[in-house]
């Protein structure tokens, strides 16, 4: 342990804080070092090769391919460079604005209504005294996280069915008329919110629970000495203790704002409610791979990617400033 820490300190020194003269000498020795390095390090590069090739071919080649967003595709190459034409078309199209708005609304609803739930679940789980009771609850509520959105959509279609779904049975018991939530344009966004809660509230609480358990027990003992009750302890010890975790995860979610989860939405879409939950990604899929407007679709995807990148980088910087912990 100690040696590796020393090692890391040395490495940091070598790359960062060394005076300029020393660094220039370093550069002069580079060629000789390369030969020595090659002899020592080639096995590592052989082992990393499949991974590196994967990243180059399936992550960087597509970045190059994204140039079709700036081109007019022709059946016989070469394609014609049209600059920002497709982006102008996009920004002039009311459908794109609707899609963007839908994405922001859905992401916003999730941030407000989904985000706090796992925190509350973790706070409650932490109060459970019996170890086996707690384990039982955890084993059950973590499960949905590991189910695909296709499966979850299937479960929700069954549970929300107007004729024999559990939800309408319960509301019917209170005298309410059955609603076909999956095909009701007023409900469908809430279906997204609740299905997201169903899927992730349990599993996401694990992160917060881990943070709670890491809080120094002495703080609780001291609070108890001062006569603090359950709520005072939660308010003054637990919540301050997990605030950095909350901040990090909040910011991370904010960085994903323009995604709104394609895998979820595409399984809850049908012709009746499409206009309510058509998001950027489903729009890209539809006009790109179903209608064949590749350039326009790529432009929309690229727009989302660039905005997403800005959001994530901002999130990373804010997180680093606030909590000293970045997104990665």
């Amino acid at each position, binding site marked *: 342990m100690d040696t590796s820490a020393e090692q890391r300190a040395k490495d940091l020194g070598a790359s960062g804080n060394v005076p300029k003269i020393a660094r220039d000498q370093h550069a002069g020795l580079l060629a000789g070092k390369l030969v020595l390095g090659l002899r020592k390090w080639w096995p590592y590069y052989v082992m990393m090769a499949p991974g*590196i090739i994967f990243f180059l071919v399936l992550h960087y080649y597509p970045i190059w391919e*994204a140039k079709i967003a700036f081109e007019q595709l022709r059946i016989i190459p070469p394609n014609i460079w049209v600059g920002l034409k497709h982006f102008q078309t996009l920004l002039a199209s009311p459908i794109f604005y609707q899609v963007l708005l839908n994405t922001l609304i859905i992401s916003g609803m999730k941030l407000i209504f989904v985000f706090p739930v796992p925190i509350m679940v973790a706070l409650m789980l932490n109060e459970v005294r019996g170890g086996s009771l707690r384990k039982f609850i955890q084993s059950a*509520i973590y499960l949905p996280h590991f189910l695909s959105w296709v499966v979850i959509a299937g479960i929700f279609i069954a549970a929300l069915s107007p004729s024999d779904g559990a939800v309408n049975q319960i509301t019917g018991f209170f005298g309410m008329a059955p609603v076909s939530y999956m095909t009701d344009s007023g409900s469908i966004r809430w279906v997204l919110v609740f299905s997201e809660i169903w899927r992730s509230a349990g599993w996401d609480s694990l992160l917060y629970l881990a943070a709670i358990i890491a809080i120094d027990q002495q703080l609780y003992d001291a609070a108890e000495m001062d006569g603090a009750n359950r709520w005072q302890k939660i308010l003054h010890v637990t919540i301050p203790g997990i605030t950095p975790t909350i901040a990090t995860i909040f910011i991370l979610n904010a960085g994903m704002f323009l995604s709104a989860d394609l895998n979820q939405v595409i399984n809850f879409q049908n012709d009746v409610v499409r206009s309510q939950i058509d998001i950027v990604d489903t729009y*890209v899929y539809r006009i790109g791979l179903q209608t064949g407007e590749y350039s326009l679709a790529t432009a929309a995807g690229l727009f989302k990617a660039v905005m997403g990148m800005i959001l994530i980088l901002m999130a990373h910087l804010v997180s680093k400033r606030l909590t000293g912990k970045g997104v990665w």
Partner: protein
Amino acid sequence: MSGSNIRRTPLERIEYAIIVSTLLLLVVITVQPILNLLAVSLSDPKQVPGMGGLTVVPRGFSLDVWSLLIQNPNVLRGLGNSAFITIVGTLLSVIFTAMMAWGLSRPKLPGRRILFVMVLITIVFEPGMIPDFFVNKRLGLINTYWSLIFFKLVNAWYLIILIRFFEEVPEELLEAAELDGANAFQIFFKVVLPLAKPALATITLFYLVFRWNEFFRAMLYLNDQSMWPLQLVLRQFVVEGDKLAMVGVQNMNNYTGASQIDMRALKAGIILLTIAPVLLIYPLILKFFTKGTMSGALKG
């Protein structure tokens, strides 16, 4: 903590009861829909139409739905396709991720920083599904299983998890192996990998679940329905409501009593069939994931 049990006031007891019952309600909301599907799929087909969504007890008992499912060629093919993509994909993913993580975890590796940035950029910037599609087309991967196996072959997040783990491997151990005359490959496969078993198990489970659940890339890349993974067979039948996906090719009435099979029961069955492999490894997931996430915190 046990001491405070004695000193509990009635108010605190009520609070505790509310907390526990809220959590138990959460458990019911999570598990009941799945149990309801199980009950529907195991009921006597004639009695399914009257069944509500709240019941978790089968009405009558029949395995008709399940025998229909395991005889259905589309379902069987879907199972086979999913199994192949999941197993081959996971194996390749784990070994390539581990090998790359090992290199990147060596602090003195030349080019380490550049490679690291290269990986981080892929997390931050994804050009989207259309360029991905075109690259797969260029490489001739459309309509092959490889298009799915190569998708996220090395997951950047799991790579980072493994790098962090490998960074903790004690230097002395590696030096000792080197003195014994082991080369870099032997050190990795014989010393490092066995040490990394818990971490490897964790990312293996991550990859297994991710690969089994993947459906969207299959929608993009596989035109040939006979190559579809189970998730897509399920999707066409349950989400898109296309009965042909299940029974179109054969005459439904060829099955004994098939005309009486309730579509709802059949849907319940195929949903459960798609969940089954996840349920099978779920105990392992609980063991590794929760331990992995919790133990780090517990030390503090």
